[in-house]
């Protein structure tokens, strides 16, 4: 990934992240604001419910009070105290109708029912809860589970006590509490109030007013939790996969006289507005983010172009340097860090170039010095006998003329031998200097290897204890190479290997193909080389042998290099050495 691409991505991600964060913060703030509003509306609705509850309870208590104080009730109380209840069995129904009550029971002091409007048949049965030590006349209306012939219902009831002399009568008056009660509440838009009547030990959808069975089942766990914990709880319920269908429900337990939750008031607040708003915010955020991303890309492209242009120039310059062009310069007029970097780069390449020039010159001087040293060393050995021989001739002529002839013959032979030696030394130097340009032509490397082995066959026989091995790849393709130069290089390596095994060993020649190259390995099992020797082995005039000129491997490297190949050596002391030549099958100049 390029630096420019990274910069573009960084810009884009930064802007998108910023927009996303803004959208998230706005969404969260909106949700919190809606949550607070929802709580306020819920509290207001609950307050309205309790006021209506109180108002209706007051009505019921007033009706119970009127009934308790009526002459008819007092007469019933007196008759009941005498055990004459039969004539009044239907009176509660009449009184309930007259006072618009759903439930009315007239109960004797022993809590046996005298008359019941809701269930005329219940006469004589007990309402034991009335025996609690409570001042019923001061008690407000309360919730109660009222038993009807075939069901239980939720009722808002009040109890008053009639006293006519010694005769007493409980008046239990009430009205049904159901969805019609909730219908009187003024509900804000998006809100609804439901009432679950906790009349059965187990949850029953039918006891939840005004909703379908499916909705009731959706609210089941919330209602159960509210009843179980007997405290206000809330939950968000999503009716469909659409988030806008969600509703937040607050479940408020409505307790009876004994504190047991007889009903659960459910105040539902639709999240549709919030979801729509959040969706709009997100949509706007998406648009803004998209536009911002495009703008960011454009700006980033422009900005990164400005920023990365000198960097790209620097990178190109560095690549040129890597390719060996140390003369490269990066043009910049920037005054920022990138400009400083470019100037530093130019300075660096300039210095590198100067240093290389100096190094080349130094190497050249060193090479000349080495050459001079080698020449002096090589030439000094034959020259010294020459000088001695000439001085002997001169001394013989002056001091022993008689023996001059004999000395002359001997000296002449010595001189010729040393001169021949000098000529040979000069010839080798001349050969290194006169390496010709290779003439590429197809050749079989395996054939060449076999030919070289044949050439050194005499040396192998002479050595006696050196075993040649040839591991030649029969499928090795022909390569484009100068047969004579490769032969000379291989012969050089083989002779070096033989020299490296004075005590005998194994000479192993190997060929194989590797991708678009062929590999030729010459391995010996001699004493091996140190790492330092390996590093300096191809330096001209460097030799590890007593009689070597140090040009053999230099020539080999020169040949391989002229064939666009590489040569390397692997060796460890005592484990022999392996020279590996890798040559291209087809020369690049022809490809």
């Amino acid at each position, binding site marked *: 990934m390029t630096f420019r691409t990274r910069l573009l991505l960084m810009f884009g991600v930064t802007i998108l992240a910023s927009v996303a964060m803004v959208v998230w913060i706005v969404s969260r703030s909106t949700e919190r604001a809606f949550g607070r509003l929802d709580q306020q509306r819920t509290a207001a609705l609950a307050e309205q419910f309790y006021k209506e509850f109180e108002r209706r309870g007051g009505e019921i208590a007033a009706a119970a009070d009127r009934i308790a104080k009526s002459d008819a009730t007092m007469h019933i109380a007196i008759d009941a105290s005498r055990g004459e209840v*039969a004539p009044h069995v*239907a009176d509660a129904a009449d009184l309930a109708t007259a006072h618009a009550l759903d439930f009315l029971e007239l109960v004797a002091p022993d809590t046996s029912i005298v008359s019941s409007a809701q269930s005329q048949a219940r006469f004589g*049965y007990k309402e034991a809860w009335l025996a609690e030590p409570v001042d019923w006349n001061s008690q407000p209306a309360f919730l109660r589970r009222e038993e009807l012939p075939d069901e239980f219902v939720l009722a808002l009831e009040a109890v008053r006590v009639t006293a006519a002399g010694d005769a007493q009568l409980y008046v239990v008056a009430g009205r049904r509490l159901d969805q019609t009660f909730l219908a009187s509440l003024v509900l804000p838009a998006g809100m609804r109030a439901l009432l679950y009547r906790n009349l059965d030990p187990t949850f029953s959808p039918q006891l939840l007013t005004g909703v379908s069975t499916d909705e009731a089942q959706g609210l089941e766990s919330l209602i159960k939790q509210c009843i179980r914990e007997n405290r206000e709880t809330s939950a968000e319920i999503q009716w469909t996969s659409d988030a806008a269908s969600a509703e937040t429900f607050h479940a408020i337990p409505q307790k009876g006289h004994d504190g047991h939750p007889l009903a659960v008031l459910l105040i539902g607040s639709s999240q549709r507005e919030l979801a729509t708003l959040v969706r709009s915010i997100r949509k706007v955020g998406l648009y803004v983010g998209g536009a911002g991303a495009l703008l960011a890309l454009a700006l980033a492209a422009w900005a990164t172009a400005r920023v990365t242009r000198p960097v790209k120039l620097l990178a190109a310059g560095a690549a040129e340097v890597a390719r060996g062009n140390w003369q490269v310069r990066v043009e910049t007029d920037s005054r920022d860090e990138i400009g400083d970097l470019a100037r530093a780069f130019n300075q660096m390449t300039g210095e590198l170039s100067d240093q290389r020039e100096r190094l080349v010159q130094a190497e050249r001087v060193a090479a000349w010095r080495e050459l001079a040293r080698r020449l002096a060393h090589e030439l000094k050995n034959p020259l010294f006998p020459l000088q001695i021989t000439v001085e002997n001739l001169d001394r013989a002529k002056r001091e022993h003329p008689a023996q001059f002839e004999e000395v002359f013959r001997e000296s002449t032979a010595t001189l010729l031998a040393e001169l021949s030696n000098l000529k040979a030394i000069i010839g080798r130097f001349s050969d290194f200097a006169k390496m010709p340009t290779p003439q590429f032509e197809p050749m079989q490397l395996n054939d060449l290897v076999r030919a070289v082995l044949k050439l050194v066959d005499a040396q192998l026989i002479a050595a006696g204890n050196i075993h040649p091995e040839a591991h030649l790849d029969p499928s090795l393709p022909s390569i484009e190479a100068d047969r004579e130069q490769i032969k000379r290089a291989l012969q050089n390596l083989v002779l070096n290997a033989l020299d490296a095994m004075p005590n005998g060993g194994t000479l192993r020649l190997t060929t194989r193909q590797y991708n678009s190259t062929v590999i030729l390995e010459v391995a010996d099992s001699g004493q091996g080389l140190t790492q330092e020797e390996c590093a300096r082995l191809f330096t001209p005039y460097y030799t590890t042998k007593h009689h070597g000129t140090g040009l053999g491997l230099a020539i080999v490297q020169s040949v391989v290099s002229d064939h666009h190949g590489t040569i390397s050596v692997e060796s460890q002391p005592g484990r022999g050495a392996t020279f590996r030549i890798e040559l291209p099958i087809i020369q690049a100049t022809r490809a």
Partner: protein
Amino acid sequence: MRRFAWRFLAAASLISLAWRAAAESRPHYGGTLVVELHDSLTLTDPGEWPLRLVPLVYDGLVRLDDRGEPQPALAISWQHDASNKRWEFHLRPHAMFHDGSPVTAAAVVACLKDWTNVAAAGDGTLVFQAETPAPDLPVRLASARGAILMRGADGATIGTGPFRITEWQPGKRALLGAYEGYWGGRPFVDFVDVHMGRAYRDQAIDLELGKADLVEIPIGDARRTAQQAVRTWTTVPSELLALLFERGHGVTEDAHLREAVALSIDRSAIRNVLLQGQGDSTGAILPGWLSGYAFLFPSARDLDRARQIASALPKPALRISLAYDLADSLSRPVAERIALNAREAGVTIQTAPGAQATVRLVKYPLRSLDPAQVLAEMGGVLHADSQPGAATPEALLAYERKLLEDFRLVPLFYLPEVYGLSSRVRNWDPQPWGDWRLDDVWLEARTP
């Protein structure tokens, strides 16, 4: 002179007032007696009518007097052989159907063709030849089944009673006109206007407003109505209120469950409070005044025994439904009380109006004063595999025991019928069991 004149005028006025008062209290013809019924009658067949209405339009060969003894009606005399198998009935001469045709032995035989071995022996004599002794034949002939009628060309029934059907609106109204040719003499009232399907409450209001002369009063309201100085009349208990466990419902096929329910019912409390002391608690099919042995069937509550039986039953079997007649204001509280009583024993009863239930609260009005016939009809209801044998009290008791032994039918109460009468109805003298005798009733003139 002036004093004499004043005295004369005063005496004349007094005589005139006394004469008018005497005239108003004397029976006289005319007027329309307005009757309101809760039930709706759709057919003119006497078999479909309440027993009390049948004698208005239809006569039998005999009728029963206040003591239940057979008295002459269309037959003026009868005799039987020593074995009570052969009976001869001599028809009243000059008796006529409402269309003016004479009541002949052939016409009567045609009407009684469902009875066994009846034949005409001349124009005025009928012979019944039974295979077994039939000492109660005259009583049986006095029932609605023994009503003598003929069919007109349009299929309408034609009776011989004191009133003839003048106008018939099925289920709504029946206008009965006085029959001039009635063998017992023309009724005093010109018409009996019967309005059907009237709610009890509406009937009470109409009676109060003088729009009706004879209305029905629910038993639960009987005491209160009487306390309001309304003129009422109550029959002997003649309608059986009972629980009927329908066949084919797995739940109630267990006789132990039925017995538990039967034993849990507190009849006494229901009678004292819901029935306002009216009627009789009973464990028998026949009322005591008819059979004489109803006390042999226990009707007292035994809650401990009921609980014991119910506790041995599997729990799912302890839930049954009880249907009651929504139109009957008494049925609902009685059904609910039974449910409450049963709950104490451990049996849950769900009450509901209608007829679709495993148990029904049913009413069986007494359609005959013949105990054997009543039991035979009840045997049919209960799908009994036999009929009552001899009409002896012992045989009837055994048969009734057999009918009730599996608690398929649980008799609860014998209820009377209560009527409200307007003050202008005079000479109201029905049979104790409810047969109306409106041919002798006359109406006071309405005071302006």
